[in-house]
Each structure stands twice: as structure tokens, then as C-alpha cells.
């Protein structure tokens, strides 16, 4: 179970009792569904509601960081059929925050989605849940049953005249279904492949109808924003980076887990909350926003605060908030090989540059790692990534390219050593000691 240590807990307030605190009565006991009741009873106007969310400067928690209120305002008012979709297809390596939200506080997501449905005028919603976290899917179905039985879902919710129903849909584990239009295709029963945009989902989404898609954490934040007011929420974080955010910290730390901190918290603080470096070893590098975010070396990340702007300025992305911490026992070539294999495996195969390029990248990195690298390989990798980036329908080609480019950029000498000496710079014995198979402190 994830360890919880938070500053100003908001999203994670309900996590305290672990698996014992997710149900409807627990959620109601901590003030759940109060905001939905308030919105419906006060007949809050859709514009006011969206304005409040805009004020909070809540930015999409799935990775792209697009302002949520603005996204909602794109939904055409007049369209008769609209949908709200929640993206719980949490496939980004390093990310496990939505899993815990589903597990410990599913009703916050449900409440957020109903309110979103009200705001954009949708009568139905879907929550697309990653196939590998099937327990989360089952729990969400249970939570839906509870909400439906309590009258929070269905026709004429709380006697307001507003009707909204919500359905859970689980995927089968394809990373690409986390791309919002690939997700829509998958819900429609088709092969999960991103659509060419425009048209964007706000105009042509699920079943061709206007659709708002947000991340699980984004929806979960909505009731809290309405509870404290948009401005107060914004002030929790820093300008243009409103509120708190869940960070999934993994890797060579003593206490890996989910941590909720205000936007703008220094990385050093987050590392400290995660128990510091395992075995007291030296920090080598951090991937700050999930596997597709460019890696940052220790000296750079230690000067960053955890928010969209700071991480972007340092040359990476806050992404989904998956912080992968690597210590000095890590061979960066091997780490990249693993990442490249992932993108090679998960490319949907639709666009030529990604379908062909992701495999090419993996094979070259694999070769270098296995002592068969050539001096020209680093240039080749940079050239292939250059040819992939920005040339495909979705961002997966970029996601495959970023790690390669950033690993080479920041750790070029390690790659060169590998090619020249046909072995790792970091002694394999040290790598084995650093891996999770050995207890910290044995070093």
C-alpha cells in the first residue's frame, strides 16, 4: 500500500483509512457529495461553474497540463448529446496515482464527473480504467452501484431535474489507449488508435459527439475546488499552477509511494517525504513526469520545484507526476534500453515514423547495451529521434524520442564508454546491489 505523507492533504484526505475508507458512507462522512448537492440545489449556472474551475487554474493532471476550465468551455452549448469521459488508463511507467484514487476514494472521481457533466451539459459519462488494475475497475463498479442507489446517478439526480449516468469501462492494457482519442476509439469497440486532430473531442468525440476528457485526478479535484473556491485552490499552489498534485515517487528512495503536495514544492522536499535516497546513496538522475518525460540529472532536478513551469524550464515535463528516482548504481544505457523497449512495444503502429522508428531506437540502444554499439550510433539515435518527433498523429513518437535524446544529452559520456569498452561504466555488481532485489543498507 502506498505510503501517505502529505502537506495540506486534499485529494488524499480520504486515504487515511486505506481500503476501509472508500465507501459511500465514509465519503459522505467527510463531506462527500456536498458540492454536487450544492451545485444542483442552487441551480448554479454552467458558466459560473466553469468560471470557478477556471479561477482555480486547475491544469490537466494526466500529463499535458491543459487548463481544465478552458477545456470545458470548448464544449458546444447547443449539442443535444455530449459525453464526459474520465481517463483512468494509467499506463505511463512510473505513474500509480489514479490507481490509488480509484482504490481509496472513487466517489471523489464520481462526484467530479457528475459536476463536470452538469457543467458541460452531458448526460452520460464513461470512466476508462486501465486493464492491469482490475481491482480498481471492480471497486469503481461497486462505487457506481452505491452512488446510483443513493440517487447521485441516474434520472433526476437529487430531484434537480438533472440526469446523468456513469459507466465504467476497462481496457486491456494498451498504453496507447491512454491517448484520449485512442481511448475513445477503444470505448467504441475499435482498435485503440489515436485519431487525427482536428477535429478535437470537444467537437467530435465519443461516438462522434462533443466530449470532454479529463484525467482521474483532475475530476477528483473538482469537489475540493468547489468546496474551498477556485481562488483558494489556486493559492494552495503557485500562479499558473493551481492547487495540490499527487506525485508517484518510485525508484531508489526509502519510501516509494504517492505524495500529495502543493504545486511548487521543492523537489528536495518531495524526496525527503519519500524517505530520502535508499541506502544513503547519491542521486544520479530523475525522470520527473513519467517515462516519456526527459530525464534530468541530479544537479538540475535538485534546483527545481514541482510544478509545470519549473520543470518545463529545466527541459523536461511535469507530465503525470511520476517521479522516477535513480541513484548512482544505475547504468543509464540499461535504463534507456528498458524505456525504449516499452515504447517499441506500445507504439500502435498507425504512423510510419513511430511504427518503424520506435523499433529502430530500441534495437540500437539494445545493441549498445550489449556491447555491440558503434561510434556513429549516438548520431544515428539523435537523427532517428529527430525524424520521429512531431511527425505523427499523436505524441507517442515524441514520448519514445524524449528519453533517448535526454539520456544521450545528459549522460553522453556513459554511452560513449559503453560503445568504446563494450561494457557498463557502472560495474554490474554495483548495479545488482542497487536494484530492488537487495535490501537497502546491504551496500
Amino acid at each position, binding site marked *: 500500500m502506498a505510503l501517505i505523507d502529505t502537506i495540506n492533504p486534499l485529494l488524499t484526505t480520504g486515504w487515511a483509512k486505506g481500503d476501509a475508507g472508500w465507501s459511500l458512507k465514509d465519503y459522505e462522512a467527510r463531506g462527500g457529495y456536498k458540492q454536487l448537492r450544492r451545485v444542483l440545489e442552487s441551480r448554479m449556472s454552467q458558466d459560473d461553474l466553469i468560471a470557478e474551475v477556471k479561477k482555480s487554474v486547475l491544469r490537466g493532471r494526466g500529463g499535458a497540463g491543459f487548463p481544465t476550465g478552458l477545456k470545458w468551455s470548448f464544449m458546444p452549448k447547443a449539442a443535444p448529446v455530449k459525453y464526459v469521459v474520465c481517463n483512468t488508463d494509467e499506463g505511463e511507467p512510473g505513474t500509480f496515482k489514479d490507481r490509488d484514487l480509484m482504490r481509496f476514494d472513487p466517489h471523489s472521481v464520481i462526484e467530479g464527473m457528475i459536476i463536470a457533466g452538469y457543467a458541460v451539459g452531458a448526460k452520460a459519462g464513461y470512466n476508462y480504467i486501465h486493464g492491469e488494475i482490475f481491482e480498481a475497475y471492480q471497486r469503481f463498479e461497486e462505487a457506481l452501484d452505491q452512488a446510483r442507489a443513493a440517487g447521485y446517478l441516474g434520472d433526476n439526480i437529487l430531484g434537480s431535474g438533472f440526469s446523468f449516468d456513469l459507466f465504467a469501462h476497462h481496457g486491456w492494457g494498451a498504453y496507447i489507449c491512454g491517448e484520449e482519442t485512442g481511448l475513445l476509439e477503444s470505448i467504441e469497440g475499435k482498435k485503440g488508435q489515436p485519431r487525427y486532430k482536428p477535429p478535437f473531442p470537444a467537437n467530435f468525440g465519443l461516438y462522434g459527439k462533443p466530449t470532454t476528457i479529463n484525467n482521474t485526478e483532475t475530476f477528483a479535484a473538482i469537489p475540493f475546488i468547489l468546496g474551498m473556491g477556485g481562488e483558494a485552490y489556486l493559492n494552495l499552489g503557485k500562479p499558473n499552477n493551481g492547487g495540490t498534485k499527487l506525485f508517484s515517487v518510485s525508484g531508489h528512495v526509502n519510501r516509494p509511494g504517492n505524495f500529495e503536495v502543493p504545486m511548487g514544492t521543492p523537489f528536495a522536499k518531495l524526496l525527503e517525504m519519500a524517505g530520502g535516497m535508499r541506502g544513503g546513496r547519491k542521486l544520479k538522475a530523475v525522470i520527473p513526469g513519467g517515462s516519456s518525460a526527459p530525464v534530468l540529472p541530479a544537479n538540475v532536478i535538485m534546483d527545481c520545484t514541482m510544478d509545470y513551469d519549473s520543470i518545463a524550464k529545466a527541459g523536461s515535463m511535469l507530465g503525470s507526476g511520476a517521479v522516477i528516482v535513480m541513484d548512482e548504481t544505475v547504468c543509464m544505457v540499461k535504463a534507456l534500453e528498458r524505456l525504449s523497449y516499452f515504447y517499441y512495444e506500445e507504439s500502435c503502429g498507425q504512423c*510510419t*515514423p513511430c511504427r518503424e522508428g520506435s523499433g529502430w531506437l530500441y534495437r540500437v540502444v539494445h545493441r549498445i547495451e550489449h556491447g555491440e554499439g558503434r561510434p556513429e550510433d549516438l548520431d544515428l539515435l539523435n537523427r532517428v529521434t529527430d525524424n520521429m518527433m512531431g511527425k505523427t498523429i499523436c505524441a507517442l513518437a515524441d514520448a519514445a524520442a524524449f528519453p533517448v535524446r535526454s539520456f544521450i544529452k545528459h549522460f553522453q559520456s556513459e554511452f560513449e564508454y559503453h560503445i568504446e569498452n563494450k561494457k557498463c561504466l557502472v560495474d554490474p555488481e554495483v548495479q545488482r546491489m542497487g536494484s530492488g532485489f537487495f535490501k537497502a543498507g546491504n551496500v
Partner: protein
Amino acid sequence: MVEIEIDGKTLQVEDGSTVIEAAHKLGTYIPHFCYHKKLSIAANCRMCLVQVEKAPKPMPACATIVTNGMKVFTHSDLAIKAQKAVMEFLLINHPLDCPICDQGGECQLQDLAVGYGDSASKYEEEKRVVPDKDLGPLVSTDMTRCINCTRCIRFTAEIAGFMELGQSYRGERAEVMPFIGKTVDTELSGNIIDLCPVGALTSKPFRFAARTWELSRRKSVSPHDALGSNLIVQTKHDRVMRVLPLENEDINECWISDKDRFSYQGLNGADRLTKPMVKQGGEWKEVDWNVALDYAAHALRDVAKNHGGSAIGGLLSPHATLEEMFLAQKLLRGLGSENIDFRLRHTDFSGDGKRVGIPSLGMKIADISRLDRVLVVGSFLRKDHPLIAQRLRQSAKKGAEVSVLHSADDDLLIKLKACVFAAPSQLPAQFGQVAKAVCTIKSVAVPHFLGELVVSPEAQTIAESLVSGSNVGVLLGNFAQQHPQAAMLHALGRLVSKTLGGRLGFLGEAANSVGGYVAGAIPGTTGLNAAAMLADSRQAYVVLGAEPELDCANGAQALAALAKAAVTVVLTPFKSQAMLDYAAVLLPTTPFSETSGTFVNTEGRAQSFYAAAKPLGDARPAWKVLRVLGNLLDQSGFDYNSSEDVRTEALGGNPEFVAGLDNAVDGVVMKLAPTASGIERVSDVPIHFADPLVRRSLALQMAADSAAPAARMSAAMLAKLGVAAGADVRVGAGGTAIVLPAQLDAGLPDGTVRIAAAHASTVALGPLFANLTVEKA
């Protein structure tokens, strides 16, 4: 309209156009693979990346919608770099086996690699290998060459109407494949060969037969269905090696049916008749042309002299050219016979003399796409008219309402508004209900013959749909034209279309269904029609291009009549055992590929073509044979120098569209009370059995559409008969019986059994429309 600039040239294009469309308008070529003007936009190959001013990234020209003032650069450094990058990616896993690839020389990837590829690849890893798929007898696969452009997938889903191909697996392992254990069985499947920009999908019959640069090309016209699809016939050493579509947006667009594409195999078949033959003392002898022609001329002249011209009957194939039919009828009339007919599968000729003009589509083929309400009556539309079905499929997707009235529910892969399926004898009354409802809604006096009909809810729905349209079409299919009450169906179609200010159309049965009328290949007032001259057998027959046992409405009767005749002269490209049995003289004529001629298609467009190859052996174009016969019979007006001379005489000039088309009809006796009871035969003419040429294409005969006939019936009928699907049943009509396997067909009305016509195994059963006895065998 918006104004955009491409490579410094400005132009006006319509709102919503894509950059690639705009560029094509300017004549600027943008390299592409997945884009196809008739298919949805996939934007997956990324070959068409271009630079758009202010866009940070290169944009796919196929999917980028133009905006006013947009500036596009197709050859800027950014664009060229992106295009070259994509080409490199496309080639790294491509086998580059061009020397052994059938696509070599006509390959989009090969061509574009010359422009955008490097001379050597930096990719030194192992290449991908993809297992080949079995798509059936027509399309060969080399899936390792596939670049996953998905054109074939989109074709099956969007044009053919059923997604028979899909992409499985992810990323580099993505594979295009059919459903597991299934083949691609659409009647349009060959088009995926043309669409495939690489050598992944190639023609199975053509495989390794020739290189594209060895082939001569001739424009031609399809000799099969009445669409008159434009073809490119490719030959090597005067042998037809391949047939491809010639794009004609007004007719076949850029498609052709598999029948048009693969029937050429029959041209080169072993049973081509290459020498004139004469039966002497029961023995067939190959003879010289002059001997055979003398024999034929004498025999015909003797019959005419001894028994009168009316003792001769002429059965002309509706697939014969205009020139052939014109000369044949002229010859027969010269011999004093008015017994001439090309409508071999018709059973109701009571409309003769009541039609105002020549029945035709009543509109241009392209107009079909503009109809917003359509009623198709009596048609196995998808198999009889694959590309007209395709047009209606696209219309229905855009909102046109298509309804069907027929005796069999074959999935048309068209979204239907409403449908009525009834036994053949009920069709006129069912159609009458629609007509009555239409009259009622439009407040037009209901004709007395409709008075007693009770309008069913389905008929009402069809009528309401038709009435709500502004461009209504009523289309009568082959089944309706062959129907025993064809004239009534015609009159009802006329009533409905006239009441709605819409159009009535006949979907022609064969390549020259309109041309036959134009050529005068129908009986004069004193003559016998096709059915009558077989029912009342003649002393002599002249058969042109047909196999009467398979091509006539009652094959058994045709065989009997021909066997009884003293002389049967057959002009035919093929010989068969049946012909050897009944004929006295076999004159080897050439199929469409070896003669010049004209087909008048269903819209009345006269399309002439030249021979694509020299006649095989001693075969000669039928128009030449008929001309010589005319001379030998001392008839006047047989001194033509060319087929063009014949055409000019037949058409009274050289018009693009023939004159005299009119679908009006007057004075048909209407009796709509359904008469028959018992078990009725529903007979279709399967797509690959419809004419002598297609019956001889080996590849097509292996296709799913060529399955041997069965006794198809509903589950209720099976239960009533107490037989299981697959068990044999004895089917009888008029005293003869045949044994066929019973087969479940949920699309058939109760009280009917569907038995395909035009197949040797069902000839003995006799007429297309009949009451049957069916029992356990």
C-alpha cells in the same frame, strides 16, 4: 471559397478542401500512400508532410484543411526533410525485393523511393517478416511488403460495405489480415489490388505472369453487367494477361467488379473454339471457314425455303455487341424471320407493344448518387450490379433512404430504410400496396386495380419514405425484369415514379440490354419472342454468343427445342458438350477482347472499343462472320468495311447516348391478386455464372460467390420439410426432379426455395419461376 498559396502560387479552393486536394488542383504533386480520394482520411503514412506557414511542425497535406491565407510549402527544406525521413522509415522494414515483386514497375513505393529515398540505408538491424494471408483465389499476399497504409481496410469497410480486413497487433508487429479463417469475399475485392501502393496485395491469377512494362494496353468496355465499366485490357503476345479499371467518374468511378477484372481467364481457356466445325453424319469435323459458312448459309436458306422464314429462330446473347446483334437481326429478317430476341431470361413479354420506348436506367448512372429516396424492386443488387450497389451504399451513408422490395434478403451492406420480402408471385401485389400508399399520401386518385389491396405497415413506411424525398428513384432489377409479371411491375414502377415526379429505372441485366433494343434484336409484331420460339420449337436456330441451356429462362426447354431443330447454327467463342450435342455448325467468333464493337450501357451510353488482341486461332469477329453470311445469302446491305460502318447504321450516326429511350408504358393489364400458392422457386443468376465468359474464369469459379447451387430455404421451411441443413432434398418442377443439398437461408420468405439458375446442376429443373415440389431425398 478560400484563397491559399502553395509554393508561391495562389488559388481559390472550396471551404473544407484539404491541402492535398488544393495542390492537385494546381498540378502540384505531393507524395502520398495512405491518401486516396475515394477513401476516408487516415493520415497514417505521413508521406505527405508539408510545411504550413506558422505551424511549428510539418502537417499532413491529406488531412490539413485549408484556411484563408494559408501558405503551404511542399518543397521547402522542412517539407523535404520530413518526406525523406518518412521514406527512410518506410523502407527500413520493407524487403526491397522489387526484382521478384509483381508490383515492380508499377509500385508507388518504388517510384517515390526514387525521389525521396537514399541510395543506402542506415538501418542495419534485422528486418520484419510478416506471415502471408489467404484472402481467397483472387488476391495474393506478400504481407512483409505491407506498409500499413490501411487503404485495403478502408476499402472493404467503406466501399465494399463490410470490413473484411483489419489491422491486428500493435506497432511494428501490426498486420493487415482478414477475420481468422476467412477470406475476402466481396464482389469488389480485386480493387484492393489496385489500391495497394506496394506489392503486398497482388493479383493471384496474374501472379508472375508478366512484368508491367511487357504489356500492351487497350481501352475497353466490360462485356458483363450493364454498367459498361471502362477497362484497360493488358495483353502480351496477343494474350490478355490482365484487366484493370479505366477511371470514369460517370460510370465505374475508379472501381471494377471482380467479374470484370478476372473474367479474362476465360478468354484463354481450353474450351475456346478456334476452328469452324461442322457435324457430318453425327461426327464433328474441323473445317475451313468457307466450308462452314457455306454449310450454314445453305442450311438456313433451305429451312427458309422449305418451311418459311418463321421456321428460323434467333437467340442472341445480351452480351453480344451492338454490331453483332444488328447484323444478326438483319440477317434473320433477310431470311424472312421475325423470331429474334436477346431477352433470353425474360418470361413476361406482355409489355411488348406497350412500352413507349427503349427501357433503360432512365437517368445517368451518376444521377443514382443524387437520388435521395430509392426503391429497389426485384434485384439481387449487390451481385447483379456491384457498383450501382456501391453508389447506393455511399448515398445511404449520406442520408439517402433506400428501401427494397424483393424475394430474398441478401445483405446488401446498405443501410436500408425499409424492406419487404415476399414470394415472387406476391411481388406485384406488394408493390401495388406501396403504389396505393403513395397515391393516398399524395392525394392522387387510387387506380381501380389497387382498390382492394390492404396496405401493410412496411409498404406504408416505404411509401412515406419515398414521398418525403425530392429526388426519387424506383429501380427495377434483373429479377423484376425476368419476373412472370414483369409488365405489371413496370407499370407499377411507372405509376409510383410518375406520382412522385421521380424517375423509373431499369437496372440492365447485361452489357447490351439497351443495345439489344437499339439493334432491333427483338421480335417484330409477327415474330416469336425468346420464350415462345423455344416453347414452340423451330426448324432452325441461329444462336449468337449464348449458351441457351444456361442463359435462357427455361434451360431445359431450350435444350429440348435446340435438340429437336433440324439445324442450329452457333456463333460462339466457346464450345461446350451441350453445343456439340445440339448444333450443326459451330462458327468460332471472338470475345469482346478480340473484336471491335459497341456496348450500350444501362443509361444508354454507346461505348465503342477496339480489339485488344488478335483473334485466337481461326476465330473471327462475329460481325465479320455475319457480314459474310449475309453476302453468301445474297442479302443486300451487307457490304460493311468496318464495325464502325455497322454502328453508324445501327445508331443512325455516332451519338454519345442512343435515342428512343423512354420508360413509359401504357395499357398493361393489371391483375394484382396473388395467384400462386405452394412452394415457389426464387432463382438468382449468381454473379459468376451469368454469362459464358465469366463461367470460364477458373479463379472466379473458385470464389465464394461461385458455390454450387443448393436448395436454400428458411428455417421454417426446413422444419416443415423435416430436413436438416446439409441433407439432400429432391426438388421437382414440371415432372422433372433434381437432388440438391438443403441450405438454411434466413433471408427467404416462407413458401419459397431459392435455387440458383445458370448452373449445369439446375438446368433440368426448368423455368426460373415455377412452383416446386420439395421432399426429403
